[in-house]
């Protein structure tokens, strides 16, 4: 089947997936060098989800993400340098060095974090959508969360409230088959996660999250339906994480073979092969994308290295609008 997208768009999608991949590979390396610390959760393997989704959403839509959000943040337009600087803990980071990898934010880009309490971002998304609804803004709030988050009571409370109040939330479940080291069938009673939201009157669908085009299309359709109806919808994105949960994870809970097997569906490899095969894109294009990505990332590291440390005297900043003491 040939792709019914433009060459430019294909290049864009490929470029963004590669940017994320290379950015994160560099991040892992910098973690070993102790330039980046704390928790670092890589998105490698799941790039098609973030890229497809972010391309499908409008600039004016709201994004709420998890601690595994480098991909979304990058594609949303937060400069790689600002993300890298954030992970260095520098003042020129996108959260001023206060947040780190798990707490990327950008007011300008309506990127509402970077949340590290599993499920904790969902009520925030419901509230953002409520604000838009009350103000009459034709905006969708896209809320990313993992399969593990569906275990938390807040997931259900949020579905109920969004459905009851008819709020424009698009629930995007990144089902990578594991919550940390706990496989899907060991943490949910019904593995078919999309079975749940209809019980709240929230329409739900699933899509192959390893296929960037399928993701983009599905998210686009869902988002536009949410916008039209001003009612919540749910989309499961079936994906897989190739790397450890975080840099601390020894991956005792799954076999190397399982991971290798799943890597055959690598969203970048698959898409790249397809567009090369189609003749839509050439190896030269890909080389250019790789070169650009390398350049962007080198510049990002530079930006982070050059960044200043926030003065310790300012330690209590950002606790309140005005310092209380």
């Amino acid at each position, binding site marked *: 089947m040939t792709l019914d997208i433009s060459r430019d768009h294909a290049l864009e999608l490929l470029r963004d997936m590669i940017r994320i991949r290379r950015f994160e590979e560099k991040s892992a390396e910098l973690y070993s060098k102790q330039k980046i610390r704390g928790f670092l959760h890589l998105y490698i393997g799941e790039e098609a989800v973030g890229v497809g989704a972010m391309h499908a959403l409008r600039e004016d839509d709201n994004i709420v993400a998890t601690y595994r959000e480098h991909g979304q943040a990058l594609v949303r337009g937060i400069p790689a340098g600002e993300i890298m600087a954030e992970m260095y803990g520098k003042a020129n980071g996108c959260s001023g060095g206060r947040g780190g990898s798990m707490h990327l934010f*950008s007011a300008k880009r309506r990127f*509402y*974090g970077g949340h590290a309490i599993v499920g904790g971002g969902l*009520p925030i998304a419901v*509230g953002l959508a409520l604000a838009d609804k009350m103000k009459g803004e034709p905006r969708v709030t896209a809320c990313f969360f993992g399969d593990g988050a569906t275990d938390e009571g807040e997931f259900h409370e949020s579905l109920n*409230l969004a459905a009851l109040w008819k709020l424009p939330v698009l629930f995007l479940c990144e089902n990578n088959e594991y919550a940390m080291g706990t496989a899907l069938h060991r943490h949910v009673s019904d593995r078919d996660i999309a079975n749940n939201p209809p019980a709240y009157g929230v329409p739900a669908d699933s899509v192959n999250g390893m296929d960037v085009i399928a993701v983009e299309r599905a998210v686009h359709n869902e988002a536009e339906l949410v916008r039209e109806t001003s009612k919540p919808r749910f989309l499961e994105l079936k994906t897989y994480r190739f790397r450890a949960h975080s840099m601390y994870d020894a991956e005792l809970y799954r076999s190397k073979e399982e991971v290798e097997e799943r890597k055959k569906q690598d969203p970048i490899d698959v898409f790249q092969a397809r567009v090369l095969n189609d003749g839509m894109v050439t190896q030269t294009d890909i080389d250019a994308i790789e070169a650009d990505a390398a350049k962007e990332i080198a510049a990002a590291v530079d930006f982070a290295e050059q960044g200043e440390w926030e003065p310790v005297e300012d330690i209590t900043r950002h606790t309140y609008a005005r310092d209380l003491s």
Partner: protein
Amino acid sequence: MTTYRDAIRTALQTLLREDPRVFFMGEDVGRYGGPYAVSKGLLEEFGEDRVRDTPLCESTFVGAGIGAAIGGMRPIVEVMTVNFSLLALDQVVNNAAVMRHMSGGQFEVPLVVRMATGGGKQIAAQHSHSLENWYAHVPGIKVLAPATVQDAHDMLIAALEDPDPVVIFEHQMLYGVDGPLDTDATPPSPWKAAIRRPGTDVTVIAYGGSVPKALTAAEELEKEGVSAEVIDLRSLRPLDRDAIIGSVSRTHRAVLIDEAWKTGSLASEISAILAEDAFYELDAPIARVCTLEVPIPYAKHLEEAAIPQVDRIVEAAKRTVSGG
């Protein structure tokens, strides 16, 4: 004369009338008229969009309040009582309190959360908590405890004007209390303590539902020749250190009242502030009159014995005045 309950309703009305970004939500705040009849009539006046009955989902409706505040609205969220707020604590501590900080100052949460607190109604171990000090512990939020009808009104108005999340504790025994309300006067800063009764021999520090008890105790002490100064903390975070230290620097003796369990109470914090910054002013041990270390019992005589009462305050003050 107005009741505390009516004063809050008046403030809610003013806020809802003056700013279209303001809305009010919580369990049974609409059709039911509010669990303490605070919001009776508001649904009728402002409609279902701006006065929202929520399902029972404390975590999510508080979180939705946070999201709506970030999204440009000015939500006032009622969590029926502090007892149920345990279910929403994650949202308060891990979202409301830290959003500004984690985002490097990009997002603020101009949210007001109101809740009833305290015991005294024989509603037993799951329904009588006083957890003000838990909230006062958390940087990023502010905490108010109106003890008077005037403050019940003014603090709600001030809380909404504040760009930071503010939690307001309303003691359940105060809703029916009558007092003067002047809605035209310029209110004092909500972040400052008030001297409710000047005195020279001992400083009695209280907040919320304990303030009336402290005042009654001061009257009794007066009869026994002890002049007690009664400080109403008003703001529990930030604390008005100057007022606390100032009063004790005059009286040199302190009795701290708190309806929370004694261990780990806000009274402990006040004591620590004094032991740190007014140490050389103190002429006697600092006494705490708090709730005993027991879940609140249902039986009336036991509940009364568990929580601070006037006689215990009087006794502690006399002990303190005579040197501990």
